[in-house]
């Protein structure tokens, strides 16, 4: 099993250390940073435990959108590197279906992390990166069925590419 929680704990601890230094220098602590995990790492980290239902494979790239001080993005990048992962600074280019929902997986006074729900991660992959994810989406269609088919179709995806007839 892949556990992203320990990475978030390490990031939170690092921010706490930085805030301690800022307090000593009479500066305010960093405002809370918000993370939205996307892509394959989002599938790994989601509490639905898709690792048991889908054969997930990912590179060590982490797609995530951070809202907070820019310097904390660099800290996040360093923490990821310490855990053998790489922050993809092009994460803002990932297409997120407008009706997406998300699930919180970690929260402290310093960090809040949510994960895009799997249906929408898979829709994004099916619509925008179908060749790279052909087998994953075929497997996911068997798990999510018509709900996923409808979303892919709605956003102009090619269901036939995944061997599906569609919902029409």
């Amino acid at each position: 099993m892949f556990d992203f929680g320990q990475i978030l704990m390490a990031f939170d601890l690092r921010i706490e250390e930085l805030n301690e230094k800022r307090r000593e220098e009479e500066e305010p602590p960093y405002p809370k940073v918000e993370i939205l995990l996307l892509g394959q790492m989002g599938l790994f980290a989601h509490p639905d435990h898709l690792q048991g239902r889908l054969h997930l494979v990912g590179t060590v790239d982490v797609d995530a959108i951070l809202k907070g001080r820019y310097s904390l993005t660099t800290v996040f990048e360093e923490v990821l590197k310490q855990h053998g992962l790489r922050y993809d600074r092009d994460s803002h280019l990932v297409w997120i279906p407008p009706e997406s929902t998300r699930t919180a997986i970690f929260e402290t006074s310093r960090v809040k992390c949510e994960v895009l729900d799997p249906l929408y991660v898979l829709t994004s992959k099916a619509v925008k990166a179908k060749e790279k994810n052909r087998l994953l989406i075929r497997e996911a269609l068997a798990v999510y069925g018509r709900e996923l088919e409808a979303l892919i179709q709605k956003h102009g995806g090619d269901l036939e590419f995944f061997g599906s007839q569609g919902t029409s």
Partner: protein
Amino acid sequence: MYKDRRTLRVLGFLAAKGLLIVPWVRKFPGAKLRIPDVLWVAENVEPRVFEVLPAALLHFPATFLQKDRLPDDLRRVLRQMGGPVGIQEGARGIPAKNFRQWAEWVLPDRRTKPLSAQRILTKSFRFPRDIADGIRQQAARRGLSEGRYVEMLVRKDVGI
């Protein structure tokens, strides 16, 4: 396909070396992999194998057998990796920058080095004393190390 022996070996190796995350396979750091099997897995199971294969070939050449079966486009990426200007073109729909980033990525296996670190080789030369003095003085005048100064001269002469 997911239970195919080729899939388990190829993905097990790449997961063991920190190039892929594959929670459902047993890591297989000591695998020997035939290139045709690696290509089969990349084409039929997991295209991300194409993306990390050049980096894997660079860092773990002894792992891979039948390297003559590597297709032309991936062979070109590997060749450009070792060249003076680096990877310029992508392959299989994968941008050049993706291949570059995995070649530069620091892997958990500490015996490997990022590509840019590998390009630095140690050389020893004997020079007459006046030449050695000249190198030292000219390097100092330019604020360079002696090695960097000699590199500058060679690049100028060779045109790179």
